């Protein structure tokens, strides 16, 4: 018989306000096996933990139940506390009477009854707990960063600087990401390329960093400390070692009609191309879909002009398989498609553009050479309208319910830059709220209004209608004056909502990392573990986790790197001892369990078994504890009931069920 101690936490008033803690203590004390029951205002505090430790020592407890917050919050705390007091840490069970009880109920009687039942279930379970010992696994001292934007680059640089090798995988032909497409950055108006390019160069030159561009993650297996990742390097058709980056091939390429992705399809590019002048690596790729040589077999001009002999039409995709200890997801974002927002006439007029398109138009390397002009006729606009929250904060299913966070600031930046460069252009901004939390952010926005005379109107735009003369009639509302507003504009810029890059969902599945309904990766704890995924060894950097601007992305990238370094600095990790194991007397070696195991942790052995005095050799399942992650799929599949899961055994779960139904 176990000697069980029950500790009920008040959590200040978080629990005690709706649960009669003393009655829970009383009820728990009456349960069989309970030799000690008490309450305390804050069980997780040092004094609370000391209380538990001394009860364990003084009363010789063999198991404890803590009735407190979610085990996802403090299970580790109380396990450590038990361990310090000489109790096996896996003899601790938590009854979640805060998140699952006091916070969801108002009625004290109801909540107290429920808390008592939850405590009983935990007591019933701990009766059947057995001491478990954690194993150890090795750590591969190399990190993988998926995505080569500013988030990925910064994370990789920080990890590399700490002395660990890092690989960056980027699906585009060059690293740089969205930041490379931006013209200026708020709130200081630094030129984006000027601050990004040095970082790109630094990453490329760093001895600890390898960059795989034009590559994608194909397959991920393994677990924290020991991931194996297959990276598909798409055929570049250009030899990276031979190419000198002279650019002659791109100049001579006769196929020039491909929409230029880097310029948001506002211009065209050749079939052999580097996305932009400062591309890293400065080695072009051949876009086989649009290359005449690949389409018709005739051409080969680039091969003819290449003095270095770098063009290789026979290259094929290559799979690189590498081991990593940690994986960082930094897959970034794209703007949403606007086909469901017909009211803004984005598809009807070339002069209705997204803000990212405006970035390219404002950029000296962009399709208009940095000159502000209408894409329809090349004329300079006189009247510009910016519309905020296009698809953001939109819960009707067409857009995104969240705030994209960066739009208020970049719109203020665009408006300011335009008024600065072209003072005779009138700029009007329609907004719902102007959200500028951040250092020097509100001051920046106020400058746009007060110094640059940008006309901010509180209210949304209901319709943008192209007029016969090519201008645009913008119908909006002015909620301050309580009037409808009509503006005839030359150009309309939409602050389009951002969404996670489409690759994030597939990647999350591969990594078994949680993802939310908006396809943003979920953090392990929204406040206290913001850069870690709940999946051990997977870290989050940049917009893949949620909308954020450049300063925030860089801070998060650094935080993420610190977490990765913390992991890689360890020589070995303790593994979860809650693994499956088979009862050799029941196992008949049918292989059903191995078929459902996602980790390949189950193998079979011929073993001599003494079955009630009858000795014989049998084929039985053996679980590799280093590989088993403890999902329990095998336990249910096993037809003879030989497989069981430590920590969540059949008997333990049934005991909980019985306690709840009692």
């Amino acid at each position, binding site marked *: 018989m176990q000697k069980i101690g029950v500790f009920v936490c008040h959590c200040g008033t978080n629990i005690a306000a709706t649960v009669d803690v003393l009655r829970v203590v009383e009820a728990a004390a009456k349960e069989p096996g309970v030799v000690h029951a008490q309450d305390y205002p804050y069980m997780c505090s040092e004094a609370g933990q000391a209380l538990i430790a001394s009860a364990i020592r003084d009363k010789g407890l063999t198991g404890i139940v803590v009735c407190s917050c*979610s085990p*996802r919050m403090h299970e580790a705390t109380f396990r450590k506390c038990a361990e310090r007091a000489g109790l096996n840490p896996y003899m601790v069970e938590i009854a979640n009477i805060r*998140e699952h009880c006091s916070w969801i109920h108002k009625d004290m009687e109801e909540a107290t009854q429920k808390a008592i039942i939850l405590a009983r279930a935990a007591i019933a379970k701990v009766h059947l707990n057995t001491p478990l010992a954690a194993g150890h696994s090795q750590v591969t001292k190399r990190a993988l960063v998926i995505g080569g934007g500013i988030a990925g680059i910064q994370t990789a640089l920080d990890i590399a600087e700490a002395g660990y090798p890092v690989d960056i995988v980027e699906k585009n032909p060059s690293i740089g990401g969205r930041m490379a497409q931006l013209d200026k950055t708020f709130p200081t108006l630094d030129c984006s390329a000027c601050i990004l390019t040095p970082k790109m160069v630094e990453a490329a030159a760093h001895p600890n960093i390898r960059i795989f561009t034009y590559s994608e993650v194909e397959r991920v297996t393994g677990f924290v400390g020991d991931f194996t990742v297959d990276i598909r390097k798409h055929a570049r058709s250009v030899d990276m070692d031979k190419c000198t980056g002279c650019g002659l091939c791109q100049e001579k390429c006769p196929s020039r009609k491909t929409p230029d992705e880097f310029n948001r399809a506002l211009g065209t590019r050749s079939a052999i191309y580097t996305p932009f002048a400062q591309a890293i690596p400065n080695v072009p790729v051949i876009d086989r879909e649009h290359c005449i040589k690949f389409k018709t077999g005739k051409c080969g001009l680039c091969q003819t002009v290449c003095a270095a002999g770098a063009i290789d039409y026979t290259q094929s995709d290559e799979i690189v398989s590498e081991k990593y200890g940690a994986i960082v997801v930094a897959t970034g974002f794209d703007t949403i498609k606007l086909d469901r927002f017909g009211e803004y006439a984005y598809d009807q007029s070339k002069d209705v553009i997204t803000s990212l398109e405006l970035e390219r138009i404002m950029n000296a390397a962009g399709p208009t050479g940095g000159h502000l002009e209408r894409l329809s006729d090349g004329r300079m606009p006189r009247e510009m309208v910016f519309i905020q929250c296009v698809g953001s904060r939109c819960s009707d299913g067409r857009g995104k319910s969240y705030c994209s966070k960066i739009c208020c600031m970049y719109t203020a930046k665009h408006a300011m830059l335009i008024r600065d460069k072209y003072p005779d252009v009138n700029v009007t901004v329609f907004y719902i709220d102007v959200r500028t939390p951040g250092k020097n952010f509100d001051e920046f926005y106020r400058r746009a209004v007060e110094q640059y005379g940008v006309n901010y109107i509180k209210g949304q735009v209901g319709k943008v209608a192209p007029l016969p003369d090519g201008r645009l009639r913008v119908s909006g509302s002015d909620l301050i004056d309580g009037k409808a507003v009509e503006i005839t504009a030359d150009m309309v810029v939409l602050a389009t909502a951002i969404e996670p890059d489409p690759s994030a969902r597939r990647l999350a599945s591969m990594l078994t990392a949680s993802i939310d309904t908006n396809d943003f990766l*979920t953090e392990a704890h929204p406040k206290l573990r913001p850069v870690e995924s*709940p999946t051990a060894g997977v870290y989050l950097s940049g917009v893949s986790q949620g909308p954020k601007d450049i300063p925030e992305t860089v801070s998060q990238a650094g935080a993420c790197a610190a977490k990765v370094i913390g992991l890689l600095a360890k020589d070995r990790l303790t593994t979860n001892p809650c693994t499956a194991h088979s009862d050799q007397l029941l196992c008949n070696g049918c292989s059903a369990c191995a078929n*459902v195991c*996602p980790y390949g942790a189950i193998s079979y052995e011929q073993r001599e078994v003494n079955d009630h005095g009858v000795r014989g050799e049998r084929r039985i399942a053996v679980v590799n504890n280093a590989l088993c992650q403890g999902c*329990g799929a095998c336990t*249910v599949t096993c037809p003879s009931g030989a497989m069981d*899961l430590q920590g969540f055994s059949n008997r333990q779960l049934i005991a909980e069920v019985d306690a709840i139904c009692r």
Partner: protein
Amino acid sequence: MSIDDRDFRPVIAAFCCNWCSYAGADLAGSSRMKYPAEVKIIRVPCSCRVNPMFILRTFEKGADGVILCGCHPGDCHYSTGNYYTRRRMASLISLMEFVGLERGRVRVEWVSAAEGAKFAETMNEFVEHIRALGKNTRLEDLRCKN
């Protein structure tokens, strides 16, 4: 409806996987969403840990409804666990119907860690449904009664 029916407080067990649904339930709690106290949550590492036998046992012991919550298909922490759950539960549910248990006493829902509101909503709806069905008399083990 008799007076007994109105006072009927069903016993409901909710099996929640540790990675998505249990976290979703935590989020429902920390967001102070309300759902009936009849729901008692049992934590399992993955929805695929739940043996259909556990569910039968729950009914046998007098539960009126059982709900099993896991990660959305494709999002399982153990990559494929909830696919097994889906298949197993599909057969269990049709078996339960075959033996004459009312439809809807067993339910499977996918709730992610970010879906606190969905968790609360699902529980409210489920409890309402079980209340409407009334007491589970068909699968309860009469030997458990004195």
